């Protein structure tokens, strides 16, 4: 089955990102497809390469980049939401790509299931 994930909160204010990462891993472990994750609203803050938590603490931005590198999951962030929040091409973590909102529509249409993580 083909899953889509939408993330609407940033990585450090809420648990939503941790839940989304754990769910994404489980989707792939169960043998389902997860071609894309879309980040909208404050969710685009997950793409900030400058995020530097203390050593030993959770590092969600890196978690997403690893998911992209190891599993080929595309990480799409909304251009409008990103510009407002100061997430730029130059500060994008590996695996993330800035796209238009049309890509969100595309992800929804292509997927069998959508799971949203927010607050």
């Amino acid at each position, binding site marked *: *089955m083909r899953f889509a994930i939408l993330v609407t909160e940033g990585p450090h204010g809420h648990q939503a990102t941790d839940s989304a990462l754990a769910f994404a*891993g*489980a989707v792939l472990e169960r043998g389902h497809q997860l071609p894309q994750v879309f980040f909208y609203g404050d969710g685009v803050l997950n793409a900030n390469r400058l995020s530097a938590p203390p050593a030993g603490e959770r590092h969600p931005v890196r978690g997403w980049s690893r998911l992209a590198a190891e599993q080929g999951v595309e990480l799409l962030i909304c251009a409008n939401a990103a510009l407002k929040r100061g997430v730029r091409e130059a500060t994008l973590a590996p695996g993330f790509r800035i796209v238009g909102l049309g890509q969100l529509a595309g992800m929804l249409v292509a997927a069998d*299931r*959508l*799971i949203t*993580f927010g607050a």
Partner: protein
Amino acid sequence: MSLLHMVAASPFTHRALEACLARWSDGDALLLMEDAVAAALDGAVTPLPGNGPVFVLLPDLVARGLAARPLRHGATPVDYGGFVDLAARYDGSVSWF
């Protein structure tokens, strides 16, 4: 079409669970996750669906030191694999924030 309803906010702090239950259909299921796992604890005074299964995300119970406590009648713990299975089994899902 049966739906999997997902609630993450604590029912003591938010009204998301109430909003969800107000739009409940026969055949739907509820997944309590993050702070909302508190709604599944035995003794909690917050509402649950009158019919239909209630699942609770186990890692969220464990993190909060609540995994050993008795759950309310009919609440079933699931891990993330079980969460994925539920999402696949139901026709669709709704997140209530």
